[in-house]
Each structure stands twice: as structure tokens, then as C-alpha cells.
């Protein structure tokens, strides 16, 4: 019985269909539908606020009203499945790629992917990075959980920077070619860095193989001239390598 009431309540919240649950509510001088609307309003405004805070550059690119419209559709079709709200909104980039009203903004889903990667980096668990001496012993390694490797045909890093408050230059060349980014957390700060294709493959291969040696071979296969020693120093300095469990 309680389960049935809760299922009906969910329909009243997400599908605007209060028909079933309204009959269970005391009107008390105010219609049941109006009382249910108070709850629905909070569900949508609070979840929209979460999405706005995770995707501020997307909000800026499409404007706040359009974003609220898109968020309303997203919340109905992709409601949260976890009470940890920093995990909410992972599917928004794919949703935007399919969302007809904004589909002509071809770069928008990848800008959203960059913002999601930054959100993941901010909340990722704290794991101690591998140090130089330990790496020399050839352990199995992985990328730090804060790291996302993001490849895009659009200059999403330049778009992100041009849309920061107070950005000096807000013009972006859209046809500058593919970008390869490492997004991660350094201390308390979330950063991203543009990589060469070979440096990107080096990191991808570390994630896939767990072996620095195998990853180096893949990077060399792509670019025989890559300065591997310099790249390994960069990985250590960024503290993005961890021991593979």
C-alpha cells in the first residue's frame, strides 16, 4: 500500500499526472493538486540548480531560459538514481547530443563532457599517487580516479576559457582541429591540459594495460619522436598515476 502510494507520487512529480495520488490527499482549504505542485516545484527547481552548477558554461552558451527548458526534459527522462547529487547529470552530454532544439550547436555535447569531467575530478576519491622511486620498480599502474581523457573535434578548452567571467577574448576558432585533453584534480584545484595525440595515447594505454612499458610502446608507435622521459616526469608531477589494485 505504501509502495503503491509512493509509485503514484512519483508519477505526480515527474509526469505531471496527479490523478491517482490526489484522491489520497486532504484538500484542507487548498486543492490537492496545488499541494502536490509545491513538492513538484521543489523537485524541479532543486535538480535544475544542481545541473546549472555542474554545467555553467553550457548554461552560458544556450542562455538560462533555454537551459531550464532542457533541464526540465532531462529531469523527466533521467531522474537521479542516487542521493549523492554530485553524481547527478552524467547523461546530460549524451542527452544534449540527441536534443533536437539544440542539435545545431554541434560542439555543445563536448563542452558538457568537459564540464562533467571537471565535476568528476572535483569529487573523485583521494588516492595517493605513485612516486618516482616506486615507479622505477615497474609496478602495475592506473590513472588517478580524478582523471578523464577527453578527445573532441571541437576546441572545447578554448570555448571553456572564452566563457569564463572576465575572459579577455571571447572569440574562438571552431575549425582548429581535434583537441586531446587531460582533466584532473591537483590538490584542491581542478585543471585541464591539452596533450599531443601521442601523449594522449600514452595515458589511454596506461588506463587500458596497467603497464608503463606497454603504454610507452603504443605512444612510440604513433610518434617515434616522442620524448618519453619528459612525459613520464609530467605524469609524476601531475600526480595522476596510482598503483593498480
Amino acid at each position, binding site marked *: 500500500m505504501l*509502495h503503491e502510494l509512493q509509485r503514484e507520487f512519483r508519477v505526480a512529480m515527474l509526469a505531471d499526472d496527479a490523478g491517482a495520488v490526489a484522491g489520497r490527499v486532504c484538500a484542507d482549504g487548498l486543492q490537492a493538486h496545488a*499541494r502536490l505542485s509545491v*513538492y513538484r516545484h521543489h523537485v524541479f527547481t532543486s535538480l535544475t540548480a544542481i545541473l546549472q552548477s555542474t554545467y555553467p558554461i553550457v548554461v552560458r552558451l544556450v542562455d538560462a531560459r533555454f537551459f531550464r527548458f532542457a533541464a526540465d526534459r532531462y529531469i523527466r527522462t533521467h531522474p537521479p538514481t542516487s542521493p549523492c547529487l554530485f553524481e547527478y547529470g552524467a547523461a546530460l552530454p549524451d542527452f544534449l547530443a540527441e536534443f533536437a532544439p539544440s542539435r545545431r550547436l554541434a560542439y555543445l555535447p563536448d563542452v558538457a563532457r568537459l564540464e562533467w569531467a571537471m565535476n568528476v575530478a572535483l*569529487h573523485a*576519491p583521494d588516492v595517493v599517487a605513485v612516486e618516482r622511486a616506486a615507479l622505477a620498480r615497474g609496478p602495475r599502474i592506473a590513472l588517478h580516479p580524478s582523471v578523464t581523457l577527453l578527445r573532441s573535434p571541437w576546441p572545447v578548452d578554448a570555448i571553456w576559457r572564452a566563457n569564463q567571467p572576465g575572459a579577455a577574448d571571447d572569440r574562438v576558432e571552431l575549425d582548429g582541429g581535434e583537441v586531446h585533453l587531460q582533466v584532473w584534480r591537483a590538490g*584542491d584545484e581542478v585543471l585541464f591540459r591539452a596533450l599531443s595525440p601521442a601523449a594522449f595515447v600514452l595515458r589511454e594505454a596506461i588506463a587500458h594495460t596497467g603497464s608503463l612499458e606497454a603504454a610507452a610502446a603504443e605512444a612510440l608507435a604513433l610518434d617515434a619522436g616522442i620524448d618519453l622521459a619528459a612525459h613520464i616526469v609530467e605524469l609524476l608531477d601531475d600526480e595522476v598515476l596510482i598503483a593498480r589494485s
Partner: protein
Amino acid sequence: MGGGPAIRALERIRRDHALSIHGVGLSLGSADGVDTAHLARLAALVERLEPSLVSEHLSWSVVGGVYLNHLLPLPCTEQALRVVADNVARVQDRLGRQLLVENPASYLRFRDAEMTEPHFLAALARRTGCGVLCDVNNVFVSCANLGGDADAYLDELDAAIVGEIHLAGHAVNDADGRTILIDDHGSRVSPAVWQLYAQAIRRFGAQPTLVEWDTDVPALGVLLEEAARAEHIAHAEAPHVGSAHAA
């Protein structure tokens, strides 16, 4: 619940201050039961931060794996009481400590209610050994919205089970021409709620008190004024002034 700067900041605060961990995600009223993965994360957090109090709400948010991000209302029925009691017992077993359960702000009530909310909370405490977090602003808001008497609500609540008090501001909105109060934690505590707080202190003693303000957060000075006012009332109104410990 994740890593990064937020949890590190809490650990720094924890060195100098007692923490009260206040959850909104356990969904104690879910007929589906408590999400064990979320409970495990809460248990890890409690172990890491060693708070002096842990609390949640008399409400539900999860059905069929969907989290609705609101403290949704429960019918005050025997069946709902069994569901909440089972969930509270599971949480307390997992955490190895007492949970305080808070009365939510309500905007509706169900026709099939079999008891009042204070009775529901007292029965829950008897069955599970949990305590009650009395949110005085929620008492005021719910009574205004549902046509109840806030003084009578406090009189009905079993004083022995109250272990913490919350205060907050509320918004006054219009819904179809009727005033409805919204518990939005976005302004100063209203004069009527301060009066009700004094009554709560007389009844429950000087319990640890939290002023909730998480929408349009003001300058620190305003928050300190609100906290000082709560502390003053707790000292002035407590039956045994020597044991006052309002925070």
C-alpha cells in the same frame, strides 16, 4: 561522500568543533527499504568524521530506484510506521549508534492518517530506540499549512526523546489565493518561530540547536546574530540553566 576539498575542509573543522551529520538521502520512509550502497557510504563517512550527532528525516525520496530529491510526506499509518521502524533499525545497526529522526515541513497530509505526527515519532522511538530532532520551524510551517496548532504539537511530542533542535527561516508564498509557508532556509528565523523555540526549550531543555540557512546565505555576521539569539533563548528558558549547551 566523495573525496577532494569538501571532505578535507570538514576534517579541519572537525579538529576544533563537534560535528552533527544531517542526512537528506537515506529515505527512511521508502517501502523499498534503505539503499544499502548509500548506507555503506554514510557509515564510512561517520567512521571518518566521528560526529557527535547523526540525523535524518521522517520522509521518503526513493521509489523504484529513482531519487526524487525532496523530503516527501508519509501517511501517519501503522503500515508506514512499520516501514520506517525497519529502516531506522537497519541504519542504527549499520552505524552502531542512535539516529535522530526529524519532523519534516509538510505541504499536504493524507486522508488515511491513523495517528498524529508526534504520536508517530513517539512510537518510532519506542520501537527502535531512535531519538527525535525537533525542527521548530517545520512544526510552525506544517501547522500553518495543514491547519494544526504548533503549541499543541510541541506539547504532544514526548520530551524525553528530543535530542536536537533545528531553526530556520521560511518563505511566505501564495498558492491559489491561499497563503502557504515554504521551508526554504533562506531568511532570518521568524518572530513566531523564536517564540515557539522558547517554548521548545522550556519543554525539551537546552538541546543542541542548529540554525539552517542554505539558500541566499547572508554575511557571517547575520548568521552569528541568529546563533547568539538561539543561545540566549536556550540559556534564559532552559529549566536547568547549568546544563545549557546550545550551539
